[in-house]
């Protein structure tokens, strides 16, 4: 192994193409899993392309970043997907966006770019201008699926469906009332955020862009981005700011979980539960408004600290609201848990075995419901979590019910965390603006979002800019597990199974640029196919 730099939270290691597979295998056997990967066009620096594989080693409290490079004229590195299947999407994404080829990848098809995007044009290369518009070429899209036979019906779930609050496409292959197979097709709503940030935004504008990755868990994205830059530039963040960050992240988790419980009730036909959960959630929205001025999209994080302080009076009000929110949430949850028909519809449904979960690298409540004890807040303490006391709930049912119960326990842990933070809030400054930005320094920030581990990687660009920014939302890691969960289940259970990962598609889709016209091509074919019973 070559150069290695030692940091607290992560370690960047240059590996040679020959040994990467072996290194990855050893890490996986040691209990690590694939967190994320990014391709970087480093040609302006050294005439090479680079791939960064971030591997999370929760036991050792460190992220191992494996850096592979390839020369400009032959941008090709060995794939690690055959060793660790969690890397599949990340490698396909790097192939789409930066044009690095992965040797021996089992399925190096397009993941993100539309199928009528011209070959050999890679939008995240530095010589591709952010405002360039591409004319579509003849697409080959839409024809998929080998499972069709007389008795199988293809049921399109999406791209518009009341279950999915964003356009995504699942195709279910159904025989009688059973799902015999499922395909996922996503990345329809790409906003090209990375390109935007790298090309025309400054360092402290990006937290606000990052926050808009997701309408539900935005704060966690801006926090992860700020942490990544702080790591890269070695910024000292005042303690009070760290506490306020934790405070808002926990408020966000409570609101997000209560929202999910409501949606889950709605999908199971229990609309009263839906309404009552959202009523309890309103107190949490009031808390957010009181502290940040916004019900959602708090706009509180900046590199070096936070933007708003918290007065004693606000702390008192918050504590009062918190009591109301907790009492009412407890009451509604107790009622729901007591409803046998709801529990019966979640128990034993949508099973994700621990082994698959580990190989795919699922995160957050989905992992914890499959018996994997992982939580970024505990394993890689950030913000104020090192000083706080909380339990990480782990269930071994591997089903939708376990995911529900993990979230129930987490919600009440979060209530306790908010209280601890408010009671122990240290005095002092809330932001440190005395820092300078180095050139081409790597930083990684990770947070435990309501949906699981959220990782942002940054290469600083100097002059108040970032050279490369790669956010990876938890749903990106959880989605590949959904087709596995769906197989063999009742069609009636498909919505709750898909919802059980608490999917956030816009988070997953942050990365890309899609021509609106060709976006249609992607799904129109299969949709029409699905309308009729399929005959060979």
């Amino acid at each position, binding site marked *: 192994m070559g150069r290695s730099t030692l940091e607290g939270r992560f370690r960047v290691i240059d590996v040679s193409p020959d040994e990467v597979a072996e290194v990855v295998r050893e890490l996986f056997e040691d209990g690590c899993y694939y967190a994320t990967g990014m391709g970087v066009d480093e040609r302006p620096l050294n005439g090479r392309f680079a791939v960064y594989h971030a591997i999370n080693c929760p036991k050792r409290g460190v992220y191992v970043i494996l850096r592979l490079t390839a020369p400009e004229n032959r941008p090709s590195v060995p794939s690690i997907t055959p060793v660790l299947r969690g890397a599949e999407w990340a490698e396909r994404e790097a192939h789409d966006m930066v044009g690095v080829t992965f040797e021996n990848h089992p399925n190096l098809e397009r993941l993100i770019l539309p199928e009528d995007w011209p070959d050999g044009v890679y939008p995240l290369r530095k010589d591709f201008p952010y405002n360039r518009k591409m004319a579509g070429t003849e697409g080959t899209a839409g024809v998929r699926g080998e499972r069709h036979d007389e008795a199988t*019906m*293809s*049921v*399109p779930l999406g791209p518009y*469906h*009341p*279950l999915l609050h964003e356009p995504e496409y699942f195709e279910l292959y*159904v025989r009688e*009332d059973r799902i015999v197979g499922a395909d996922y097709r996503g990345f329809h709503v790409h906003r090209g955020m990375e390109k935007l940030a790298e090309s025309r935004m400054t360092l402290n504008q990006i937290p606000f862009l990052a926050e808009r990755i997701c309408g539900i868990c935005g704060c966690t994205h801006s926090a992860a981005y700020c942490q990544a830059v702080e790591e890269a530039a070695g910024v000292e963040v005042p303690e009070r700011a760290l506490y306020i960050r934790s405070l808002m992240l926990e408020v966000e988790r409570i609101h997000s979980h209560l929202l999910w419980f409501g949606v889950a*009730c*709605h*999908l*199971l*036909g*229990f*609309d*009263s*539960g*839906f*309404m*009552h959960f959202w*009523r309890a959630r309103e107190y949490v929205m009031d808390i957010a408004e009181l502290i940040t001025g916004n019900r959602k999209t708090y706009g509180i994080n900046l590199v070096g600290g936070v933007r708003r302080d918290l007065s004693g009076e606000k702390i008192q009000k918050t504590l009062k609201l918190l009591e109301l929110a907790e009492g009412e949430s407890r009451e509604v949850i107790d009622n729901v848990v007591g*409803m046998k*028909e*709801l529990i*019966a*519809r979640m128990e034993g449904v949508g099973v994700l075995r621990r082994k698959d979960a580990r190989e795919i690298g699922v995160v957050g409540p989905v992992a914890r419901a499959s018996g994997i004890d992982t939580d970024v807040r505990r394993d890689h303490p950030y913000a104020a979590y090192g000083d706080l006391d909380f339990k990480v709930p782990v269930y071994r049912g591997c089903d939708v019910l376990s995911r529900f119960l993990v979230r129930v326990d987490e919600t009440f842990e979060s209530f306790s965390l908010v209280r601890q933070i408010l009671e122990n809030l240290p005095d002092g400054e809330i932001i440190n603006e005395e820092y300078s930005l180095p050139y081409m320094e790597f930083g990684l920030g990770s947070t435990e979002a309501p949906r699981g581990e959220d990782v942002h990687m940054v290469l600083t660009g100097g002059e108040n800019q970032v050279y490369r920014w790669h956010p990876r939302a938890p749903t990106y890691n959880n989605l590949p597990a959904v087709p596995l969960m769906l197989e063999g289940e*009742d*069609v*009636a*259970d*498909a*919505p709750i199974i898909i919802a059980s990962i608490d999917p956030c598609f816009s988070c997953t889709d942050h990365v890309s640029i899609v021509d609106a016209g060709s976006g249609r091509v992607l799904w129109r074919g299969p949709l029409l196919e*699905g*309308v*009729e*019973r399929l005959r060979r």
Partner: protein
Amino acid sequence: MMPELSTLVNVVFVVLFAPLLDGIERKVKARLQTRQGPPVLQSWYDLIKLLKRPSVEPSGSFGWLFRLAPAVALSSVLLASTFVPSLLARSMGFWGDLIAFVYLLALASLFLALGGFASCNPYAQIGSHREISLLMAEEFSLAFIVAGLAVSAGGLAFSAMFPLPLKASSVVGVLAFAVMVYVSGARVPFDVAEAEPEIVEGPLIEFSGRSLGLMKLTAYVRRLLLFTVLLNFVIPFGGVLRSSVYVAALLVLSAVYAAFEAYFGRFRTADAVRFLKRFAAAGFVCWLLAVLGW
């Protein structure tokens, strides 16, 4: 009053009042969910809007069946409303019987399902499939209940059954029938055929404008007629106060049923069918009691 006129009054009453009853149920549910809820006339507003709009026919559908289904469904429930005594007790010289009523309602369900199949939409296929499974299971329970009530009343004609004689078998039968009214009304947890978050209203997904309006009106009328038959079993026939007692009882029943609906989550189809099969036991008890003369 002439029988033809009272029949007309009854049909008009049923058509006008059924959407209103739905509006009241929506209000009750909203209150239980701490919502404001829409005005009680909302279901009427929705219907008027729908009836003013043209229907769109999906390409690739069996057009004639798709167009015919809403009309047949509505006609069958309206036909049932001509011989079920609702607002006015005396209705049409012809005294219908329970079997005709049950089958007219089944015909409406059948055409809802056929309309769904005819649209060729995969969600509608699943929904129609569920509708039919549920219908068969319902018929199974209903067969025993109807037979029990008939033996108990000494005939299937409404003239014999309204009201039922006070016997153990009639009490069990009416209670069982009340449950079937709930099930047949496609209420949560038995609304599997339309399950909005799962299969997007199932058989109704491709209906729009006028034809959707007719389908909705059919559903409202159907619920009202089911309540009406249930009430006729118990309201002493022919009294002076009958009409007002009937309307008041309708409102109470509807509020109670709506309240129940707010406390359930949806079944899977298989669970709903299993429940109905088990429930046939209640019908069987009713029939057994009636045969024994209790």
